[in-house]
């Protein structure tokens, strides 16, 4: 897997014996699942086993520091995340202050707005140099998680 990719695909097929077969960039990997004393375990080799934590359907895969949406059907288990130039709310909150407006030029690291969430005022900074476009929030507005507040476009 290309560590720089923001999107990737895993083909998944269920085989008998609780075995999942993944295909990624042409390479096949098998993963087996066992249920023991009420808990689920997985193994890639049938010898070393580890606990499987998840319970309940989840449309979102969470990596260390990034969140991927899971797509099913036409692109099975495809994963996609937003790029550095999109300001997406990571959490529900309230926009307390907007320091920039549509069309303003921002530098990477510059504070664009303040979002109050979980009792903290969080400074949301620009992830890239560019010009603010598609600003869709105003001061005092409550926003849900995953909401695209604005985009930073490289217009140079």
């Amino acid at each position, binding site marked *: 897997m290309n560590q720089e990719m923001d999107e990737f695909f*895993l083909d998944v097929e269920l085989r008998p014996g609780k075995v999942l077969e993944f295909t990624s960039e042409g390479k096949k990997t098998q*993963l087996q699942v066992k249920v023991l004393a009420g808990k689920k375990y997985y193994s890639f080799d049938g010898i070393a086993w580890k606990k499987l*934590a998840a*319970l309940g359907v989840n449309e979102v895969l*969470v990596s*260390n520091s*990034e969140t991927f949406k899971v797509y099913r059907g036409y692109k099975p288990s495809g994963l996609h995340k937003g790029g550095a130039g999109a300001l997406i709310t990571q959490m529900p909150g309230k926009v307390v202050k907007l320091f920039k407006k549509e069309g303003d030029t921002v530098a990477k690291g510059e504070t664009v707005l303040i979002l109050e969430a979980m*009792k*903290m005022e969080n400074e949301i900074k620009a992830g890239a140099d560019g010009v603010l476009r598609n600003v869709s929030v105003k001061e005092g507005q409550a926003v849900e*998680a995953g909401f695209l507040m604005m985009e930073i476009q490289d217009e140079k």
Partner: protein
Amino acid sequence: MKGKRVLIINRGEIAIRVAKALNELGLVSIGVWTDNETEPPHLEFCQEWVHLEGASNRDTYLDIPKIMKLIETHKIDGVHPGYGFLSENREFSQALADKGITFIGPNPTAVYKMGDKAISKQVAKEAGVPVVPGSTGEVGSVEEAVKIGNEIGYPILLKAVAGGGGKGMRPCANESEVKDNFAAVQREALSSFGYAALLVEKYILNPHHIEVQILADKNGNIFHVFERECSIQRRHQKIIEEAPSPFIGTDEALRKDICETAVRCARAVGYDSAGTVEFIMGEDKKFYFLEMNTRIQVEHPITEEVTGVDLVANMIKAAFGEPLDFKAQEDIRIQGHAIELRICAEDPVTMLPAPGKIVGFETTFPQGIRFDHCIYPGFTITPDFDPMIGKLIAKGLNREVALRKVRNALEGLLIDGIKTNIPLHKVILDEESFRKGHYSTAYIEKVRPQDRVPPKEDIKAFMVKVASIEMNNLGGEA
């Protein structure tokens, strides 16, 4: 004391901890649910469940008249406030005192004097305890804050009078930063604690945050239960705590000095419950009184682990006038070392809150691990509450053993569906200066472990996550 009906006006892991102690002592633990959280996991340990109507914190856990009504309806004998919310609110402890309800915490005078940070500084000074230079009382305006800043020299710290846990607190490097931040800190203070007043004090660079646990009864016995080092902080909130302090180390004279100083502070206000005296310690090992938290603290478990003293049970016994589990200061000794990692629903790199729904939760821990938490598969962390969802605590015969255990425990702590700071804790535990115990409160800012969190997991980790979704219909007993 047995059979007394005690209402827990809190939620999450601390409500569980308090209920456990009440049950153990033969009291009736009564927990609340709100319209915002109708099936909270803390009720598992509560013997009775009552409805605290309303959804927002202001309409429930902070609504004094509503809580007083509930107390009357359910024939409550005592109240445990936990930490946060009304735990250090002088109006609440006074309202309870007026009705003859036992407040499981210190007497209202101690809450008043120590709960108010401006007055507490004065009390400490009078008891001969060194304090950090700063304002002597509430600072009403940005102009006043700037004036004090110019007097004592920058950097200074703006902090909420009613605050704690690092909320409502911001350092300012110069006059212009004071002007920029004053109103925002006031807003945070109001929304978090219901009280907007601020303090100003000198900001000491690279300090150690070291605090001393106090346990006192209603008969004038005041004991210390040794110290905790809480210098690993992000945004002025503790994320890792240790007992004893690696910075104090084997300097038993210094340990004795800071612990006895803390007892002197507590004695100055006639303290009669569990509480914590917080100090800032410079690299020269000089320490200054910071504040006293007149409540049980998030990080109390590490003290319980190394001393064997059940702080919560003894706090309850003290409130009802019962003798403590021990008689003399010499009965309390440190054995080994304990460490606590605060597990938070937050991005491990930006350290910003990341609420969401936990879909998977499993633990595989070595011996010697205590996990105080409120997690279950299906638990939704809402933005209304603190992002801390659990405390991973390890005890070992020495620091090296405690680190060995907690590091292995992190590998066995699986939380799926939300981002957590588990990857950040792994980096810190593997980092050399932390392993050596050489760190100050500037650790996160200077060592920057967050920059070494692996940006992505490997593809096998993703396969496992996909498997956990695809295999969901497999059944099994769980």
